[in-house]
């Protein structure tokens, strides 16, 4: 369950943390997304979106690190 899709925040509107909304871009498709659950997110960040809400910020460094680790370790063995 819980179909959630990664997207990049283009712009943010609203100052009240509960009403902050972002225009999020998903590979050519854009939608307004509620940012109430990711108060630390800023424009340019990647977030995971479920039913119109960002539920987590994506840790890009972690993602990069893990993918490289997976490729490197396996190639070496």
């Amino acid at each position: 369950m819980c179909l959630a899709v990664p997207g990049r925040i283009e712009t943010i509107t609203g100052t009240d943390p509960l009403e902050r909304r972002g225009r999020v871009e998903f590979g050519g498709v854009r939608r307004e997304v509620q940012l109430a659950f990711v108060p630390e997110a800023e424009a340019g960040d990647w977030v995971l979106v479920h039913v119109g809400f960002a539920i987590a910020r994506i840790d890009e460094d972690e993602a990069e690190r893990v993918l490289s680790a997976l490729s490197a370790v396996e190639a070496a063995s």
Partner: protein
Amino acid sequence: MKFVDEYRDGELAERLTRRIARLQTRPWTIMEVCGGQTHAIVRFGLDRLLPDGIELVHGPGCPVCVTPIEVIDRALEIAARPDVVLCTFGDMARVPGTHSDLLTCKAEGADVRIVYSPLDAVGIAQAHPEREVVFLAVGFETTAPPTAHAVLQARRLSLSNFSLLVSHVLVPAAMEVILAAPDNRVQGFLAAGHVCAITGYEDYDAVARAHRVPIVVTGFEPVDVLEGVAMCVEQLESGRCEVDNQYRRIVRREGNRAAQAAVEEVFMVTERRWRGIGDLPESGLAVRPAFAQFDAEARFGPVVCSPEAETPCIAGEILRGRARPDACPAFGAECTPESPLGAPMVSSEGACAAYLRYRGSAA
């Protein structure tokens, strides 16, 4: 698509399956809890890529499948009222109640609307003060915070025509019932990554210790699932039973505090009926009395669940991972998505539907 396509890379997947094959020395039975993981496994044929001896068992992580028939019947009754707009996610539209389903109800003239977000339902309520808008709130812990936020938003807007028919369920209760069964064969778990994005995984330590099973918080793409399996097998082979996090780019140990706070404010934990399984304590959410005006059960009457009728559908066995869909005598025969005997065949996340769609009736 960034953060999606990289995790569908065939070469990475192959490397992970080789790693699993090297690690494995004995047969292991691992359950993936989440319907989204089931979907990925069957769609990409992941279980067929795994070495023989690693058995992936599908769990009850399909909130649509476990929604009691009485909730669907109540949704249909409410939808039939001329003053009501019944909003639902697409997933619930075809699930059969006792006599009908929401799409058929819509065809008969009811105002049933499929929405992408609970906030769309609030928007409809705001735009149509003369109508009663009821949102069928289904889903696990991932979807509860958006629903809670929708209620808070409705309160901020002073709406008096918006309410929820709640059918939110909680994953740990399902894991407990599976692990507590005397004939439980599940030796390791792939925990639901998006649920854990919200709840965190601090509570799983106790489950892992008590039942001596490794639990790996796992994502949804093929590389995620395979990496989760690899991490689980590694623990099983070395006799460890700890909680580990494969989905590190998304999930933090403490989860999402802001989302948890919204849920805590609007909902309380209750016992809930799981279709096909039974009544599980502390397994679902209900609207707190302070928000009663947004509770469809307060407006339209409580949903009362009767003892489940005898049925040829073996959904309970399937949801608990005790039977595979293709072992059911009705699978693909009397029971198909067009004429389903139970929810797992009609839900997009249901194990039966996934098997039939991607495997066919001859598995």
